[in-house]
């Protein structure tokens, strides 16, 4: 009999007032008992609407059925068959707008906690290491993947399983892309990312770090080196600024810089050399997941007050509901319907931030995005006292590769032109993830990596 409790099992987590002072993971994961109870809520629907909500089409009822049978390792086999990074997705996927939004149990009550069960299954596997994955027999064809983020790792994993010899080139010194430089430790422990990457290496994927394609080597040279196809999973790493006066003051940085210092360079730890500014009052400009991550990191570094400054209202924030709630619980102040117009600095040579001048906004008619357009309220300017400003306004693709590769077209916003299979305007070059869509989610990038892996396989077969 299925468990007909209308509510999902809550996942144990650190108390807000404790966790906002440490970088340990916020959510602690299901116990075996909670996982069994939650798995029993799945009705095992024949048409499995949940699968249609998943960009990588995980066999959701299949892996949950294994959990119900008390076989978590079996569940992992099902799960990992279609998802190269299940421990990551279980943590950072917006399940509420994907698989769980399609769950039949969600019609009368809460959907099955698919994300939480995915996380439980993947964590079970990581803490009960069995035989490492076996390296498939090589088919002798070489593929280069640029960027070791979600798109690149997924594409590489799928190609390796088909027998391709895959080399990933990563610009930074650690593989993982946004999973290691962007998403904080307390949402996604870096040990989890490292373990998932070890799984890929066991499949025979080679990862070359410190390789900036477009500078160290060009895409054209990769073809000369014998790679038959190239996948660009280079993400959207170029930060945007507002273009308001005072943005060059000391104490204004992009969320990318702040998060890279904290997450990749581990500046929150005493034993690392990368400096970080321990601010007293922090203003984070933006309303997306990245803004929430930056605000929560700033709080953990000891700031007295951290606020999110967002020009629309909370309902329009692009961040996940869960992230907004977590941030509020941790004491982040939401200053909505206000927009910075100038950042004010101290006098003298130091030029440090002392305040941000903001104007209050109201919502007018809906704009092209369908959201109501924020309109300035005349005469409503005020100064928000702060000594650190983090700009979390979104990112664009880095032009380093598009500008150094012949016949590779981009369009508005600097994104690469690619068809639904990831095929770019340059023969043999495929692309997916944020590099094509602009800043989006981990799972959409993974879906694109998967699609391109299939397209690359077809392309190479057609040539041989």
């Amino acid at each position, binding site marked *: 009999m299925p468990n007909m409790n209308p509510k999902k099992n809550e996942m144990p987590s650190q108390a807000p007032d404790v966790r906002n002072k440490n970088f340990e993971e916020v959510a602690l994961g299901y116990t075996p008992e909670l996982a069994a109870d939650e798995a029993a809520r799945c009705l095992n629907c024949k048409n499995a609407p949940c699968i249609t909500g998943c960009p990588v089409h995980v066999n959701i009822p299949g892996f949950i059925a294994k959990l119900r049978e008390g076989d978590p390792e079996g569940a992992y086999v099902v799960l990992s068959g279609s998802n190269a990074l299940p421990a990551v997705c279980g943590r950072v996927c917006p399940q509420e707008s994907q698989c769980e939004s399609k769950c039949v149990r969600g019609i009368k009550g809460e959907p099955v906690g698919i994300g939480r069960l995915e996380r439980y299954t993947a964590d079970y596997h990581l803490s009960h290491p069995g035989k490492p994955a076996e390296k498939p027999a090589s088919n002798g064809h070489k593929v280069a993947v640029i960027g070791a983020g979600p798109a690149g790792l997924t594409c590489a994993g799928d190609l390796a399983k088909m027998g391709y010899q895959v080399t990933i080139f990563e*610009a930074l010194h650690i593989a993982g892309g946004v999973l290691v430089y962007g998403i904080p430790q307390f949402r996604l422990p870096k040990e989890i990312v490292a373990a998932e990457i070890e799984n890929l290496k066991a499949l025979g994927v080679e990862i070359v770090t410190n390789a*900036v394609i477009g500078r*160290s080597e060009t895409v054209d040279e990769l073809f000369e080196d014998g790679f038959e196809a190239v996948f660009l999973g280079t993400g959207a790493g170029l930060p945007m*600024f507002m273009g308001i006066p005072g943005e060059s003051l000391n104490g204004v940085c*992009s969320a990318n*810089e702040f998060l890279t210092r904290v997450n990749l360079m581990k500046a929150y730890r005493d034993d690392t*050399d990368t400096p970080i500014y321990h601010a007293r009052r922090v203003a984070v400009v933006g309303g997306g997941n990245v803004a929430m991550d930056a605000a929560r990191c700033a709080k953990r570094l000891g700031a007295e007050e951290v606020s999110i400054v967002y020009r629309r209202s909370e309902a329009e924030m692009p961040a996940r509901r869960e992230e907004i709630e977590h941030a509020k619980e941790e004491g982040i102040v939401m200053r909505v319907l206000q927009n910075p117009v100038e950042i004010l600095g101290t006098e003298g040579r130091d030029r440090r931030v002392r305040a941000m001048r903001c104007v209050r906004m109201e919502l007018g008619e809906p704009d092209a995005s369908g959201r109501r357009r924020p309109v300035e309220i005349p005469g409503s300017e005020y100064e928000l006292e702060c000594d650190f400003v983090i700009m979390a306004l979104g990112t664009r693709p880095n032009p380093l590769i598009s500008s150094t590769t012949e016949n590779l077209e981009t369009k508005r916003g600097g994104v690469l032109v690619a068809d639904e299979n990831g095929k770019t305007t340059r023969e043999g070059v495929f692309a997916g993830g944020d590099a094509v869509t602009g800043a989006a989610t981990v799972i959409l990038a993974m879906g694109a990596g998967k699609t391109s892996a299939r397209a690359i396989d077809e392309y190479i077969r057609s040539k041989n």
Partner: protein
Amino acid sequence: MYKIVKKLDLNPTVSLMEVEAPMAARRAKAGQFVIIIPDEKGERIPLTIADYNREQGTVTVIFQVVGTSTLKLQHLKAGDSVYAFVGPLGRPTHVEGLKNVAVIGGGVGNAIAYPVAKALHEAGARVTTIAGFRSNDLVILEKEFDAVSDNFVRMSDDGTWGTKGLVTDALRELIERGEKFDEVIAIGPIVMMKFVSLLTKEYGIKTVVSMNPIMIDGTGMCGGCRLTVGGESKFACVDGPEFDGHLVDFDEAMARSAMYREQERHSYEATCNLFKGVE
């Protein structure tokens, strides 16, 4: 890991390091930079390329000890390794078509001025080098400069090497004497590049400066290295590191370079004590 094949202390605070990094060596050009991470817990340190050897697959950097990370680098020896070596990054110096160029180096900036002078010399330009140091005991690359310069002007603050005075004094004198430079390339402390640029502006001589701001990734991802150039925000790592000296906001660049001064000082003192403890 990347093996150090040669390590030389050029003066008490400036060292040369040649590192095995075949990928970086394959495409390295004068004016570009690399990023070195000394060990797993280290910073990403941007250092401009001083020399490279494509056959041996090595890249040479020359650095001054200014903080924790450069102090860590200085303590490494030939045979040791660095954790990461990334490059080449940034755009190379534009040398084509130049006929008569003044290359101006200040202090450790001379380490970067040298490959530029060499590249210009190899491209057939007439090269006037004006090198400035505080005093005789800090001089680096004298022989090397001599070999690639048609005219080599030595300047020092205290008169212990060459002529006493600033590099701008020497440059003004050359221009006043009728030297027709089609370009001046200045590499050194921000304040020196600022005053060289102010001087050449008076005479309308195109001037290129090499900026070395605080940066993390070096690929255009963090924006920490942004500068205002001609009223526009530019990233030194991908748009530079070389910029038109007449357009750079040097005062802003100076203020920005002090962002972490306080933390850096504390960290440096702690690291100094640590090294004292081991030795």
